[in-house]
């Protein structure tokens, strides 16, 4: 679960995008992101509304876009389990 999420976050994504791409329940992805953000592995990069055609009318909050936190991943620390190692 976590290696896949970290790998996918090489490109900024919303929790919903991650859940769709990885076939995980949205709630699980949100929890993992909360956990990782709490320890400084990932951070919210902004709110994703730019692609929405009704953004001027929208009352929604948009969705947080998540990305890897720069420098937060410890040097030499591989991602857990079978997932590929993230960049240092």
């Amino acid at each position, binding site marked *: *679960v976590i290696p896949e999420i970290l790998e996918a976050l090489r490109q900024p994504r919303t929790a919903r995008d991650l859940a769709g791409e990885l076939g995980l329940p949205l709630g699980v992805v949100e929890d*993992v992101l909360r956990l990782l953000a709490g320890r400084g592995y990932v951070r919210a990069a902004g709110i994703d509304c730019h692609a929405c055609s009704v953004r001027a009318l929208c009352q929604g909050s948009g969705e947080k876009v998540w990305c890897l936190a720069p420098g937060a991943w410890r040097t030499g620390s591989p991602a*857990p389990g079978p997932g590929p190692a993230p960049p240092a």
Partner: protein
Amino acid sequence: VGNPNTGKSTLINALSGADLQVGNWSGTTVERMEAHFSCGGRRVTLVDLPGTYSLSATTPEEALARRELLEQRPDVVLDVVDAGNLERNLYLTLELTELGHPLVVVLNLVDEAAEKGITLDAAALERELGVPVVATVASRGQGLAEVAARALHPALPGPQVSYPPLIEEAVGELARSLEVPHRRWLALAALAEEEVEVPEAARPVLEKWRHRLREAGVDAFLEIAEARYRRARDLARAAAGEARGGHGLTERLDSLVLHPVLGVPVFLAGFFVVFRFTYLFSDPWVEFAGAVQEVLAGWIGALGLPRLVRSFLAEGLVGGLGTVLAFTPVLFFLYLALSFLESSGFLARMAFLADRVMKSVGLPGRGFLPLLLGFGCNVPALYATRTLEGFHDRLRVAMAIPFMACSARMTVFALFAAVFFPRQADLVVFGLYLGGLSLGLLTAMLLSHLTPPSVTSGVMELPPYRMPTAAVLLRLARLRTMDFVRGAGGVILAAVLVVWLLLNVPPGDLSQSLYGRLAGALGFLFRPLGIEDWRLVGALVPGFVAKEVVVGTLGVSYLGSQAGTALGLNEGLQALGQALVAALQGTLNAFPAMVGLPQLVSAPPEVPGGLPGALSASVSPAGALAYMTFVLLYTPCVATMAAQAREFGRRWAAASAAWQLTLAWLAGLLVYQVGSRL
């Protein structure tokens, strides 16, 4: 214990008959609550903890849940799991198995899981976990007897998660040096570098293993979390079938309710229905309560008591306190409707929809929930701002909260709207609520130019839609109405006593009494607003203490000048019987009236008497609307001012009160000047 919004408080209420606060959103329970009941001849204490996703304690509520589990050593832990979100919920379950407490898993909300097409195998989960697993629908009482029975025979769970060999080795050695029952969990948390207290004696072992893991390039935190998530996934697959495709109820409703364009009109319509429901169903019972009040005053008049005692009982107690209590049906039906919005999940979505509007006026999106709470009572709403980050975010929301029409102000609106705008009462009150909200947001917007920008994240979690049972709604409405009666009772009684005393010093013409002259002296301020009657002006003064007092004071001062008619016992009973029949007819008529159909039973024509009659003769409809506007916007109550002073300092509280008074007067002036020309 369990994830947020899984029905923990509902389960405890259902098991014990307690009245813990329940709601369909994350974070309804923010403190430790207890309830008691007897089970199998034993007295059982149930402890309700705030919802938490893990034992990592990233919020104060999660820290409270963790502290309770670690320090209080419960006899048994009931882990309430949302059956429709098994994989997510089982992460916490796995942590709980590592704590070493006897455990029972309550697989709640199985009805919602079934609606999603998820087939559950509680027995398979029980086999995998090695602890009792009970499927329940707590809100409908399903499975409760089994929970109670199996909680008396819980099982001690064994290790559930296999961690990588190096971590297992580290946990083994570290756990042996820890002399606490939850040693496996503590060893894991310490290796993951969570904030936990490790005994001095175990520190060298811990440091040794942390060093070894770092040397080996192992990130213990990630490895431990990953192992738990994988095990949670395996367990969920073993216990729950795949949900069938297609969109569930929540997705289908959200496509309409959260629609970018239709969302706001849908919610405005929803709130209008709330007010229409409140008026149509409460009006017959307000009339009935008014009739009870008149009969009581009549009976007191027939007792042959000394004039002063009779005056106090009939005009002071029955006229003042009785007038406020007469409006409790309005509050009951309002709370009933709001409880439905809250429990069903619509209220949380309103906060979600308001996010963009909130941000445009410099408020954090999450600040809308305290604003919504302000419609019930401003004081807890002010304390709810503590959930926001940053002093200035909190301040902006707190300055907007006093403009939210609390339920105490509803009694004034209900009285005046029924007297002056009987056909559009629901629309008038709806407009006042929206007006208060708009001016609150305007206040925040003005303040955002003076204070630094928002720092609070706007992201919030949406609960699923749920159909609350009638029993839950009635219980919530009853509890909140009783809270109002209990909370307001003392203040109203004291204010009514003072007002009655001032009205009778010196005895005789009330307008020449101390109260009449004091109120008359303030009259010049309210003449431009079309409010000339000294009794209307006078009621605004004790209204500073609490808005519940306004109607009571009006009752004392208006009814004090009317000679009550003495009633015999039979006459009174006959009048009460007629009033009851009329109330029942009115309730029957309310059902078709909700959808604009003709009445089922022809209602008798209404003849305004008592306070409504006296009021209608003392002010014009435009003046009445200005009066309601002033009541909506001026300082809500002493308790709100005190809460503002405590949270933000006296200067901000004083500035807020001054702004409210200014805005109330200006808005009242505008309403009267425009209204009287239409």
